[in-house]
């Protein structure tokens, strides 16, 4: 048997210097490499950048502080991520058919995307009918929710609702639970889009009450859920909108953490125990094709959150320190040109999220850039997750990129960048003040323009857009998802009939109670929303009442 080689003959003294010399000689003029967060990327990372002796301090073990390697001891090997595809189109019956089909194909959690009219606080009879059901399901009442979830075991499946303040969709779900005899304590899931600050910053898609009212309703909602729907996550802090709007990955993480701190501060200010509400905080992020940067973003965010929560709030429950997050592959990276290429992009994005340690994943359909996804496109998006999990075995090893010199060095650098951006917001008085003043909106707008300039100059290649173009005509593009106008018309007319035949006194009484709660600082507004939904009030009636009592949140014009 050969003697083992002497390490010195493999890497003699001065090997690093020799490599540097040879690299410089052979590369000629080196390319400047910088990731989207502005961090310079070196050609090689070694144990000079990170060495294994720092494993325990920097990383720890999965399920242990600082959670760099993951928030659970078993991570994806024990329980895979929730496969949560966004669904929403047409009428409740259309939604139910799509949901049932996706459950058959392996979707393990429910998501519900309502129509833009719902997002904006209106019932279907208050908006242009051309816009109904084109981007989400038209759900305006507890009856509609019941129809959406017909045949679905709501006590056995986690339900994520894209449900901005005042959270009528959860109120409708709770009304359905009562009808079906399912206890609130069995209801699990997340109020996606509960983060009103992210809506003010970067996604004006949602109805909003003026900032002070929005702030109060969120705290009421968290308080209500912690007491009565204990397995529900009332707070989803959203970084996704901000990154989609142009924030760099580091900025998106920083502003999200700043938002989480703001909301936690608000809960503490009303006397809530951090260990009672922090375990129910979740996060929602965009994941771009900038693969290593995204992996590092998530690992760094997890580490920062655990430390912040312990230091700032003295949280003791390990569940308070765990940075649970859902990721959605970034639609901004997808191209209309050669749209099938989007399948490759989504695969890469999904891998970055998985290696980043996500708990829940939505993969975009390749045709999302053309229209609301077709069922065919949605099926490929689900299959992509199934392939990554069961064919490629990405779930076998926990944090498989951990210990890579590059990934660890980049995680540390992203952490620094995130902390810098976070400090800028905190110095401006925290996220609420920084949003009120427009600071965060301006920073994101600048980043969006910088990225676009790189695309325009060709510094950032987008395949099929500014490079590797082919001539395409309409016939090269896949068919898009149509909206059945007849079904929408029938839905509208049934709604009008139903509204007219409701016991009007009961509706008026519930809305009056809601208005009084809005004007009584000791009352819980969300409890009023739940009662109104249960009494048969519609989404538009509830939003309209609160808009009247608490004021409307206008959009600032910031270019």
């Amino acid at each position: 048997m050969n003697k083992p080689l002497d390490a010195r003959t493999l890497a003699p003294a001065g090997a690093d210097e020799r490599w540097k010399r040879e690299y410089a000689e052979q590369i000629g003029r080196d390319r400047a490499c910088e990731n989207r967060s502005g961090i310079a990327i070196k050609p090689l990372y070694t144990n000079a950048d990170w060495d294994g002796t720092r494993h325990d301090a920097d990383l720890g073990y999965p399920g242990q502080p600082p959670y760099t390697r993951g928030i659970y001891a078993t991570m994806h090997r024990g329980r895979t991520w929730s496969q949560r595809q966004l669904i929403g189109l047409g009428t409740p019956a259309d939604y139910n058919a799509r949901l049932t089909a996706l459950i058959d194909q392996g979707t393990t959690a429910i998501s519900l995307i309502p129509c833009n009219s719902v997002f904006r606080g209106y019932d279907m009879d208050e908006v242009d009918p051309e816009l109904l059901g084109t981007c989400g399901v038209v759900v305006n009442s507890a009856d509609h929710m019941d129809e959406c979830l017909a045949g679905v075991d709501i006590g056995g499946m986690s339900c994520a609702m894209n449900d901005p303040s005042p959270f009528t969709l959860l109120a409708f779900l709770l009304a359905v639970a009562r009808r079906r005899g399912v206890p609130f304590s069995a209801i699990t899931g997340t109020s996606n889009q509960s983060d009103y600050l992210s809506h003010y910053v970067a996604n004006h898609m949602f109805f909003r009450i003026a900032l002070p009212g929005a702030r109060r309703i969120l705290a009421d909602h968290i308080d209500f859920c912690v007491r009565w729907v204990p397995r529900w996550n009332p707070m989803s802090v959203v970084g996704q909108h901000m990154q989609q709007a142009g924030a760099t990955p580091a900025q998106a993480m920083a502003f999200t953490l700043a938002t989480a701190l703001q909301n936690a501060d608000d809960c503490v200010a009303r006397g809530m125990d951090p260990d009672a509400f922090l375990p129910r905080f979740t996060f929602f992020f965009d994941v771009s094709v900038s693969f290593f940067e995204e992996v590092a973003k998530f690992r760094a965010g997890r580490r920062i959150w655990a430390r912040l929560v312990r230091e700032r709030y003295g949280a003791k429950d390990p569940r308070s320190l765990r940075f649970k997050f859902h990721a959605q592959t970034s639609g901004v990276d997808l191209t209309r040109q050669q749209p099938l290429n989007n399948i490759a992009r989504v695969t890469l994005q999904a891998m970055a999220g998985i290696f980043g340690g996500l708990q829940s994943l939505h993969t975009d359909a390749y045709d999302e850039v053309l229209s609301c996804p077709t069922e065919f496109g949605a099926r490929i998006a689900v299959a992509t997750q199934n392939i990554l999990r069961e064919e490629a075995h990405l779930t076998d090893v926990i944090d498989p990129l951990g210990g890579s010199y590059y990934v660890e060095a980049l995680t540390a650098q992203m952490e620094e960048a995130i902390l810098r951006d976070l400090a800028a917001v905190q110095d401006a008085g925290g996220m609420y003040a920084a949003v009120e003043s427009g600071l965060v909106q301006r920073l994101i707008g600048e980043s969006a323009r910088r990225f676009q300039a790189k695309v325009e100059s060709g510094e950032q290649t987008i395949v099929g857009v500014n490079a590797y173009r082919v001539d395409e005509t309409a016939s090269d593009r896949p068919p898009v998802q149509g909206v059945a106008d007849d079904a929408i018309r029938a839905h509208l007319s049934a709604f009008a009939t139903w509204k007219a035949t409701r016991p009007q006194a009961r509706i008026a009484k519930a809305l009056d109670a809601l208005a009084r709660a809005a004007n009584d600082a000791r009352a819980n507004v969300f409890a009023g929303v739940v009662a109104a939904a249960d009494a048969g009030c519609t989404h538009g009636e509830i939003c309209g009442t609160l808009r009247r009592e608490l004021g409307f949140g206008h959009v600032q014009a910031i270019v």
Partner: protein
Amino acid sequence: MTTIPKVLVTKIGLDGHDRGSRVVAAHLRDAGMEVIYTPPWQSIDAVVNLALEEDVDVIGISSLATDHRIVPKLMRALADAQLDGVAVIVGGIVPDADEAMLLEAGVARVFHPGTSLDEIAVYIRSIVPALREARGHALEDQP
């Protein structure tokens, strides 16, 4: 001699994704145009009034989530207000079949994702002289 185009960049309908409208507005402004930018959620009446009051050459509608489906209503409202010398352009996610519908309704041009900002600016400059003429404006000399 240069003509400074006057452009209203806005969003009608329900959606509020404004990355595109903000980036385009900022670029047109930096390219030397006079830009009137509004946040999302404008009503059709508000857009028509703004176009009248500001005497704009072009209305740019950004649509990411099917709001383009009510652009034909905007076209009718502009015609009712006799704003025929104003061009409407639409940018964003517009399926092919809908593009045909928009052009049929009188939209001057639809810009799809991946369009360069310069292409939009060059197009606007190319159509402004004829629009001014249609509205009976003398082409103003600018320094």
